[in-house]
């Protein structure tokens, strides 16, 4: 079975919000109707988004780092939001595991949003139906697009390639390899939701400098300096 998902690399995310705006642009322009905003240019702007980027400061100054945290539906393998839906509007696609809402069936009771521990679902203020990330289902299943463009808008927009997209059930896919080899982890593993989306942790890039590196043991020029100094004044002591 296929389970499409995102793998988000927190190590390279710079928090630029390109995924947020491209997601909004793509998904507000599609056949499913707009992602409504209210007061967008006024006081108290609010609106529906599938994707948000949050920022968390870890540690105390000066030992702090800022974690940029993109947050969208995790397309859980055991989505708790689906069985609670009274109408069947909320469902998980059999063929690719994407969790979707049928906007024509949703009655806007908000029960699914209560049943999502991650707060990934948002009720559209004007359409009054529940909305959530579709993994750009209209892009990724569109055979008229070239194959390398059949990806969610956020993945295509990310300037640092922090977002990977693929089938997490295929052990040889880019996402599975990334999860396996780079410590990919799910959010809130304490619940039995089994999120499909994974996050790759921050990694420290460290230089390892040995004594030999300092002495430049492998520098060939080092051996060419054959002058033997025995305490006399050299050019280095001259003030120019």
């Amino acid at each position, binding site marked *: 079975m296929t389970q499409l998902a995102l793998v988000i690399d927190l190590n390279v995310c710079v928090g630029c919000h390109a995924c947020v705006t491209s997601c909004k642009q793509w998904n507000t322009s599609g056949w499913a109707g707009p992602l409504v905003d209210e007061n967008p240019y006024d006081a108290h702007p609010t609106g529906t988004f599938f994707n948000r980027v949050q920022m968390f400061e870890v540690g105390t100054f000066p030992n702090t780092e800022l974690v940029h945290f993109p947050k969208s539906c995790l397309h859980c393998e055991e989505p708790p939001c689906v069985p609670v839906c009274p109408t069947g509007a909320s469902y998980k696609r059999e063929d690719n595991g994407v969790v979707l809402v049928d906007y024509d069936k949703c009655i806007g009771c908000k029960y699914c949003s209560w049943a999502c*521990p991650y*707060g990934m679902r948002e009720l559209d*203020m004007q359409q009054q139906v529940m909305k959530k990330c579709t993994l750009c289902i209209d892009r990724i299943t569109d055979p008229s697009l070239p194959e390398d463009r059949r990806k969610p808008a956020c993945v295509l927009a990310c300037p640092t390639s922090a977002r990977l997209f693929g089938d997490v059930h295929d052990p040889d896919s880019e996402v599975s390899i990334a999860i396996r080899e780079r410590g990919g982890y799910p959010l809130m593993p304490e619940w039995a939701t089994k999120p499909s989306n994974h996050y790759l942790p921050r990694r420290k890039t460290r230089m390892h400098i040995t004594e030999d590196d300092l002495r430049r043991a492998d520098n060939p020029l080092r051996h060419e300096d054959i002058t033997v100094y025995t305490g006399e004044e050299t050019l280095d002591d001259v003030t120019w």
Partner: protein
Amino acid sequence: MHPAFSVILLTTLLGAGQGVFLALVTGQVYASIKLIEAQDASFYVGGSVITIILLISGLIASFFHLGRPERAWRAAAKWRTSWLSREVIILPALMILVAFYGLVHWLGWTNPLFIAGADALPIDASLVLGVIGAVLAFALFVSTAMIYANVEFIAEWHSPLTVANFTFLGLGSGFMLAAAYSAALGNHLVTFYGTWAVIFTVIGLVSRGASLLRNRHIKPKSNLQSAIGVRHRLITQRAQGFTGGSFNTREFFHHAPPAVLQRMRTSFLILVFPVPILLIAIAYVSQSATLPIIAFLLQYTGLIAERWLFFADAQHPQNLYYQSVA
């Protein structure tokens, strides 16, 4: 969680409605085995009308909770998995049964169909409808409460105590209403219903008190570390991704200062439990016809505060992601 007034009214009105119907059926069973004085048909017809009015008011209130009320009929689809769907099916079924129950009494179709036991319990059509309705009323208590108790992420709700609270507080207010109804009619059932109302209210106090105590010591299963997957004791949110509000900041936060919560807690603990019990006790001594009515009205007001706090007390783990605006 944000206490939505529609849901507060829905759950309290339905609870009182189911309770008053159960009171009618209880009274009828007691009367048919001659433990209490039998009432004429108009008592049950009037009681059924009160029940239906409460159930319909609850249903109307529920529509205000829906974004798309015109599609509400769809909610019956997923009864295999969703308690909300089960509630949506049981509620109209109960309404129809109560309507038939009242109709049977009104038309006087109360000749015993057969007599159970050795001349002990005459069973007529209204009793059969009443008992089926009673089963439905209990099923409705369970499904309404399970909508909340089944949400494992909200620890304050995820407990059998939620079902007990909904059931006993509903029964308490329903029997209190039956006592008020009897007092208004001036019949002798005030004591009978009043006693049961006090019993259910006291059990409700025990279970609601237990849930209040339980909620004080809840250790959240999720924390910011597991929410973003960074292992550090000190994580502070600096930005939640937007400056204005969103659905997440409106639906899952009550935005009320702690003093309001404390006030709500105190007022419901006074209005739901000691005051109605005291008023019923005084009414028992003074034979007053108005005190039971006041007792019900005060208890119902208190139940609105109780339900408000039920929502406001609930901490959703998604709130971990929405702790700071800037």
